[in-house]
């Protein structure tokens, strides 16, 4: 695809804004405009570049960690739109809204353009040389123990390079923190299946029983799951799949369930055991363990009507294979691991393991496998910081000051570190605390490889390549920065690499064989790899080891009434804003939340019944107070939530980041109590209890939904039919 002798990047040179001026209607003039506009031609152009005809390049979406392959539409040197790459098993040419907005991250007007050095309370622009020198200076005479590197999920060659860099001064303190990573479930899976992230074959299941796993919205790899879901609905041998969602607050997945069951917060595990009991197929110690969980008791504790439990059990027994998923809602409690374990046990009992739960193909390069982690890591870093253990702190691809639970006071502790370096795209909350801020290339300007944590179908390594020239001269790719830094310490090993591109190319070509390059010569293989955007590996698919057991399975009774803080706070994960790192992309701010259609703001979901008790109506500004703190936001009456719980979406409430995010809504992270899962030490997201009080103010909620609300009136607008009334077999 790239003809030799022509530099990969040259053709990306912008043909000139005039070359493809965007057409304006009406207000522009309406007559011939001879000799007014300039047309700038290429100086040199390869034959395949034709003005007004778009070129497509494959790369990888960096909006979340799912690792969807994207296909960027480039015209006159500008990337215009991101489309899915059909060749990828993960997203098969499909995209989510979040991914689409990647271009707005790239073109964002609030991106950092220059390295900034803190002087007092303001930042002064400095050169990269100075910045590197400064880092080198700060690192001299500092032992590896005193250096901490905090990062979001990293994988691929970047991770390897980072590893080498940290090794170069014997630093073991690489903390990986993804605020919304399913850490507890990983641990539970490790126990039950022997792998942290097995493959869920939703498409092969006839029934999916999901305990708060929002796999259509924001859970692990939503685009992939959505596709599986579509097949699942079309049905295995003609029988349409049935989705049952058990959760205290309706997620997007819950909204698409055949049966949505509001359960008392935290009792998911109990219900799971109850169902095992109702199934009556369990034997041995499992049977013994669940004996106590008869329908009556379970129903009493979970608030799920007994008839419902029997129905579910009956259906699970009748239709096999099924699939039981443990999601965020189940894991978010002090006994989260217990819940997850119980749920995995149910899978085991139903005999789904090996059928709908399989071992995922693994990438045979451990050093490239994604580094995962969550609050446990952050906590230990936080403790270290509190103890003044670290002289230098690096932070990359994560925003702990914004996402850390308010109770652990991360902002204050971070100040205790001697010298804080932030690699950032925006001047976000964390960057604001740093002493040195280094601006990064956007994902559409940068080179890299990415290994998705959730492998869809055979192992794959995703290639990330620039879709256009750098927008800002003084931003750098993380790879280039690391390379520059590591050269400071191990110059001779790395001096042969001019830049990260060179490093990457060499690294990939070294494993040409393993990457299925075969006998192709380097250039051909490299160019093919780039044009494909994916390296498919003959992944080794191990059988699942491990076995879910009842050993150590102990579920606490549901929490009893708390007089002072009567309500459970459920920080919900908004499908497009997630943990808030993308909140500065206007498309995401303006695309309504699917269930409430609210835009540009936060809100508190509360069940109409509860609201009536508290005298709250839509638009009331309420104060939500936890033991840690309190926030004020607008109330929205939402039937899809358990009356004992309220819910506030995450991702809003930025104090920094940019013009679109700043000042929109509130940040529930700030009022989360420091309650941690007993086994894994991860934050128990749903364990914060709150009280709600009216402030007296009232606003009109900004949403797409009209005064008619979500009700159909008169004519049939959105039709619904039940399975016994329709014949799906004949459908195309």
């Amino acid at each position, binding site marked *: 695809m790239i003809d030799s002798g022509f530099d990969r990047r040259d053709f990306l040179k912008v043909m000139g804004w005039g070359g493809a001026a965007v057409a304006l209607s*009406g207000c522009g003039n309406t007559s011939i405009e001879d000799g007014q506009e300039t047309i700038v031609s290429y100086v040199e152009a390869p034959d395949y570049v034709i003005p007004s005809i778009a070129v497509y390049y494959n790369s990888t979406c960096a909006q979340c960690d799912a690792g969807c392959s994207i296909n960027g539409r480039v015209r006159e040197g500008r990337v215009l739109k991101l489309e899915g790459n059909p060749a990828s098993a993960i997203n098969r040419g499909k995209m989510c809204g979040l991914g689409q907005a990647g271009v707005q991250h790239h073109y964002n007007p609030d991106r950092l353009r220059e390295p900034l050095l803190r002087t007092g309370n303001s930042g002064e622009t400095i050169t990269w040389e100075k910045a590197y020198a400064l880092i080198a200076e700060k690192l001299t005479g500092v032992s590896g123990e005193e250096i901490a590197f905090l990062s979001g999920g990293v994988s691929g060659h970047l991770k390897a390079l980072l590893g080498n860099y940290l090794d170069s001064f014997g630093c073991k303190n690489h903390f990986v923190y993804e605020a919304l990573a399913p850490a507890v479930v990983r641990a539970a899976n490790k126990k039950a299946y022997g792998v942290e992230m097995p493959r869920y074959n939703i498409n092969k299941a006839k029934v999916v029983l999901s305990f708060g796993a929002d796999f259509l919205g924001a859970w692990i790899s939503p685009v992939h799951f959505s596709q599986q879901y579509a097949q699942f609905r079309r049905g295995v041998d003609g029988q349409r799949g049935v989705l049952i969602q058990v959760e205290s607050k309706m997620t997007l997945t819950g909204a698409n369930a055949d049966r949505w069951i509001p359960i008392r917060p935290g009792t998911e595990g109990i219900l799971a055991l109850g169902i095992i009991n109702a199934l009556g197929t369990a034997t041995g110690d499992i049977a013994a363990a669940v004996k106590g969980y008869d329908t009556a008791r379970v129903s009493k504790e979970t608030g799920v009507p007994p008839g419902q439990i029997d129905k579910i059990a009956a259906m699970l027994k009748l239709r096999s294979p099924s699939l039981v998923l443990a999601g965020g809602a189940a894991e978010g409690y002090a006994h989260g691991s217990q819940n997850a374990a119980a749920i995995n046990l149910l899978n085991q009992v139903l005999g789904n393991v090996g059928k709908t739960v399989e071992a995922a193909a693994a990438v045979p390069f451990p050093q490239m496998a994604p580094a995962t982690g969550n609050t446990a890591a952050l906590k230990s870093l936080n403790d270290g910081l509190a103890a003044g253990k670290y002289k230098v702190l690096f932070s990359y691809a994560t925003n702990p000051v914004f996402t850390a639970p308010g109770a652990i006071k991360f902002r204050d502790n971070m100040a205790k570190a001697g010298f804080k370096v932030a690699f950032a795209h925006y001047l976000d909350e964390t960057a604001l605390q740093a002493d040195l801020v280094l601006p990064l290339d956007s994902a559409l300007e940068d080179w890299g490889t990415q290994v998705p944590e959730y492998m869809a179908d055979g192992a794959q390594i995703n290639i990330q390549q620039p879709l256009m020239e750098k927008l800002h001269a003084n931003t750098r790719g993380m790879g280039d920065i690391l390379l520059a830094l590591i050269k400071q310490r191990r110059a001779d090993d790395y001096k042969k690499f001019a830049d990260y591109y060179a490093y990457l190319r060499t690294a990939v070509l070294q494993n040409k064989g393993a990457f299925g390059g075969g006998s192709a010569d380097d250039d051909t293989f490299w160019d093919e790899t780039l044009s494909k955007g994916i390296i498919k590996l003959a992944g080794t698919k191990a059988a699942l080891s491990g076995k879910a057991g009842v050993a150590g399975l102990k579920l606490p009774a549901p929490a009893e009434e708390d007089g002072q803080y009567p309500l459970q706070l459920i920080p919900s994960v908004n499908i497009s804003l997630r943990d808030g790192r993308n909140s500065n992309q206007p498309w995401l701010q303006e695309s309504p939340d699917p269930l409430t259609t609210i835009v540009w703001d936060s809100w508190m979901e509360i069940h109409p019944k509860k609201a009536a008790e508290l005298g709250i109506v839509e638009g009331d500004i309420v104060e939500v107070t936890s033991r840690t703190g309190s926030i004020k936001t607008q109330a929205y009456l939402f039937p899809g939530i358990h009356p004992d719980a309220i819910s506030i979406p995450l991702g809003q409430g930025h104090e920094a980041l940019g013009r679109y995010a700043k000042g929109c809504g509130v940040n529930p992270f700030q009022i989360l109590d420091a309650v941690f899962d007993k086994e894994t030490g991860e934050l128990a997201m749903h364990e914060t209890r709150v009280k709600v009080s009216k402030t007296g103010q009232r606003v009109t909620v900004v949403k797409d*939904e*009209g*005064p008619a609300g979500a009700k159909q*009136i*008169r*004519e049939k*607008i959105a039709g619904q039919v039940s399975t016994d009334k329709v014949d799906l077999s004949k459908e195309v």
Partner: protein
Amino acid sequence: MKDIREDIAWAKINQDVLKSLENPRKLYWVILFVAIAMVGVAVGCEIYQYNTGMGVSNKNNSHVWGLYIATFIFWIGMSHSGTLLSAILHLMHADWRKPIYRFAEAMTTFSLMTAGLFVAVHLGRVWQIYYALPYPNERGLWPNFQSPLLWDAMAIFTYLSSSILFLYVGMIPDLAICRDRMHGGWRKKLYTLLSLGWEGTDRQWRNFRVTYLTIACFLIPLAVSVHSIVASDFAMSQQPGWHVTSFPPYFVAGALYSGCAAIITLFIILRYVFRFEEYMTLPILKKIVRLTFAISMVWTYLNAVEFASVWYSHDQASKDVLIQKAVGTYAPFWWAMIICGSIVPLTLAFKRFQTNIPVLFAVSLLLNLGMWLERWMIVAPTFSHGIYPWTWDHDQWPSVVQWGMVFGSFGWFTLLFMLFCKIFPSVSMYEVKEMVYHRSQATKKLEATGKMATAGKGAH
């Protein structure tokens, strides 16, 4: 009591009327300047809206139309009264109209001009308004002849031009009088030019009468058609609350109604400002009042008809809109409309009010308010509660820009009208003379017969 004194000397008539061109009461100037100020407001709003965009009028994707359209209909309606008095009554030989038809006709013209402005103000890209004209153009494109909006434009244009013609032709003899009474000055020139060398010869008079008659005949169907077409802007659409067959007559009735109400208002004002007590007499006022009362009842009936036809139709959406009008956000205005339009006119049924100037003044204003509300209540509720529930919007409220524009339009109308009355004789002198003459002849005849009778008696 007589419609007009029969012993007014013709010279006095000329003198009185022409006085109005010279020195009216102070109030005239007050009104004039208030009007100018109001126009200023509207101009300000328009400039702001033109530069910033339609959004400042606080319409939205549910409420795409607002007060502009409502007020547009209001002014179109206003225009009908003139035609009623000058043309229809002319054909009916109702001679009591003679002292007042002139200003009524002027009213027609000026309210049409006002209405026309609202079409422009309403457009998102008013600078492209010529696209709507069917003129031979280089693009080789026609406007869309299927669109009621286009019929509207054409109808209004025709109506405006012919009513101007009617007004002018009717003035020629009086203009001649003005010409003869003037001693130099730009006015003399103006009158000389406009009176087309009127000498008052028999031939001129004959042709004059024929022409006037012809235009009158031509004007009446126009008047009816114009408002029917405005009605079809709504009736032709598919929206609930608009898609009503009875709209055209309903609109025409409403038009005549508001027109007559406006005439009462102006009658009272002019009578005072230009000292026309002798010509615009209470008996005449009484006649108009009775006419107004009759029309108000017709309107009330047609209103009821509309409700009934909606209510007994199978169109649930239309019913919902109707209910929404009565109980929803717009309920206060809707009920206000019912009260002003159907209850208040009942006072006109009482003799003692029919000549009570203050009461009539207040009532006539209320009636007009009611008629304006009617137009608004036709436009807005349908948007707030249309076919597609998801896009309902119950709490949209017109912005100050819209109100300012409506406010200013009244100023604009008043301005034009007052200037007219100052420059042209707002009472038709020659027709008043005729009236006086005929009346006096009639009484003479009566007296004569009376004498004979007595004489006969005396013979014995």
